[in-house]
């Protein structure tokens, strides 16, 4: 029974982190029609910034704030000074479909290699700000701790804030409008380019948060977020790539799938489980669970 409870709880907290990644991917996808592979680089770079802040100040909380703000800035800068010029330059031909994706991959490589040069490639660790001793249930210690709870709470609050932003504010309306139909949004007086950069900034902040919440249980190194990127992508596809709610639900499905297969089958089959989940969803419902009515195009 305890094993089951533990599996459910860890599903929730790991699913919460996947959700941050998948939301970042979906936000960028909706506004730019690009799967932003740089996301892993943005997340790991902001976490290194957080790590640097911890070295200086000793406070996880200041580092968390720095990572989130830094993540937003980095996201905005990447869109404004990297993606936008590329889109302006390459507009036609078959390469136009491939170039932006490849560019995000290249930028991912540059960020990771630069981190390796600046901070080195050895493993670093970030101490969790709260206890990581497992909770005690009826005298038995389970693999779910205060920090996992903190992760779950933080992500829940973040989701609520994002929902308010998207549903209740003007900028949220502009974001949704430019994602739905950039042309009409432009005609209605929305500065689509600026709104897009804002979307990238939110995505960057979310991935910074994801990094700071993920790393305390693991180690920090230049490629530390690659797997999180893959999981975030799978979650986003399960949810339909276009839907923010879908991204969260997809992340939870993935979190449960992985956590239960780890608890009840084997720790080694994590990636195969994720991949099989992805293929099954693509075969049965290629548009994802929360698909928009549009057919999936390039």
């Amino acid at each position, binding site marked *: 029974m305890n094993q089951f409870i533990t599996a459910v709880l860890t599903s929730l907290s790991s699913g919460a982190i996947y959700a941050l990644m998948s939301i970042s991917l979906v936000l960028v996808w909706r506004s730019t029609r690009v799967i932003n592979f740089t996301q892993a680089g943005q997340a790991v770079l902001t976490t290194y910034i957080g790590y640097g802040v911890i070295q200086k100040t000793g406070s996880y909380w200041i580092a968390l704030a720095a990572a989130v703000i830094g993540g937003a800035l980095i996201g905005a800068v990447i869109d404004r000074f990297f993606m936008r010029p590329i889109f302006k330059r390459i507009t036609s031909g078959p*390469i136009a479909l491939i170039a932006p994706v490849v560019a995000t991959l*290249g930028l991912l490589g540059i960020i990771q290699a630069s981190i390796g*040069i600046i901070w080195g490639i050895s493993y670093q660790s970030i101490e969790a700000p709260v206890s990581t001793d497992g909770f005690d249930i009826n005298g038995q210690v389970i693999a779910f701790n205060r920090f996992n709870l903190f992760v779950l709470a933080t992500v829940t609050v973040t989701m609520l804030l994002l929902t308010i932003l998207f549903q209740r504010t003007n900028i949220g309306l502009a974001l949704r409008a430019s994602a739905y139909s950039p042309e009409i949004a432009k005609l209605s007086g929305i500065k689509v380019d600026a709104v897009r950069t804002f979307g990238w900034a939110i995505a960057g902040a979310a991935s910074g948060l994801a990094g700071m919440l993920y790393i305390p249980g693991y180690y920090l190194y230049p490629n530390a977020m*690659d797997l999180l990127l893959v999981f975030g992508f799978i979650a986003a596809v399960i949810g339909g790539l276009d839907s923010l709610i879908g991204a969260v639900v997809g992340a939870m499905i993935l979190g449960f799938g992985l956590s239960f297969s780890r608890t009840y089958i*084997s720790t080694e089959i994590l990636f195969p489980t994720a991949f099989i989940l992805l293929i099954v969803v693509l075969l049965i419902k290629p548009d994802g669970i929360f698909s928009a009515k549009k057919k*999936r195009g390039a």
Partner: protein
Amino acid sequence: MTSSKRRLITFVIIGWVLLLISDHVGPLRLYQGSYVATYTLAVASIILLTGYSGQLSLGHGALMAVGAYAGALAIDKATLNPILGLIVATFVAGLFGLILGFAVARLSGPYLAGTTLALAVALPTLANEFEILGGQQGLPFDVGSSPERFGEEFSQYKWYFWICALAALIMIWWIANLVSGKYGRTYRALRDNPIAAELSGINVGRQKVIAFAISSGAAGLSGGLLVILLGGVSPSAFPLGVSFFLLTGAIITGLYNLKGVILGGLILVALPEIADSLASRIGESEGLTNSLPDLLVSALLILAVVFTPNGPGQILKRHHSK
């Protein structure tokens, strides 16, 4: 003379010249030459898939791993002749690609890219699960020493070079024939305008699956060649970086032209060497020596895709037309 005959003669001459050259260069150059041949084949398989049939794969390393493991099993467990092992590698990877192609060929753009990326992450870890695949240690991929009739003088490296160069030449020759014929026209039609292609009676899905299978087969063969050079196959032989590395080679070469494909192989072998010597000149730090090659590859990838998306030939052509 038809163009296919001319191509055959060209390839035979290239092969003959390469074998002649192999008599006159040292073991290091032969070893590097083997890598050039292997990477060139891998890059050609990506050009076929991404350039010609328009499917972006970020997981070619996984397809190479399938071929490498299949070949290693055939040689190590079924005690097949190593050359037959390479053929097994090609066909098993091709079959794998065929099955995978059915699942993913209807996906476009980002979905395909992400799915193949997930495959590249998932597949190597699977090898740890099966004892027959040798776990972390992996399996040997031993092509043995050269046949006795080649004489005592025939070095091991020359043998590697002969295998890699000939295998790559034969496979690339076949791909070149394929893309210059009916299939090539079909793929170009598919890539440039899938809807128009479908309206003119092309079975889009089937063509994409076929392209996937052939590209996988070629990737599987190059995977087999790569692990000959590495001395064996293990999960760590095909990290995610390999897939990106090869994609970079394909983009630098130009995705839409098979002619310059050797350039991709040459650059992929030369770049790490250049980066190494640069790194040792700048400093001795571990981070620098490890990360500088990646930095160069990634920078080159971005520059290539932004400035010469259709390959370096594009610049030459532009100068001509001025």
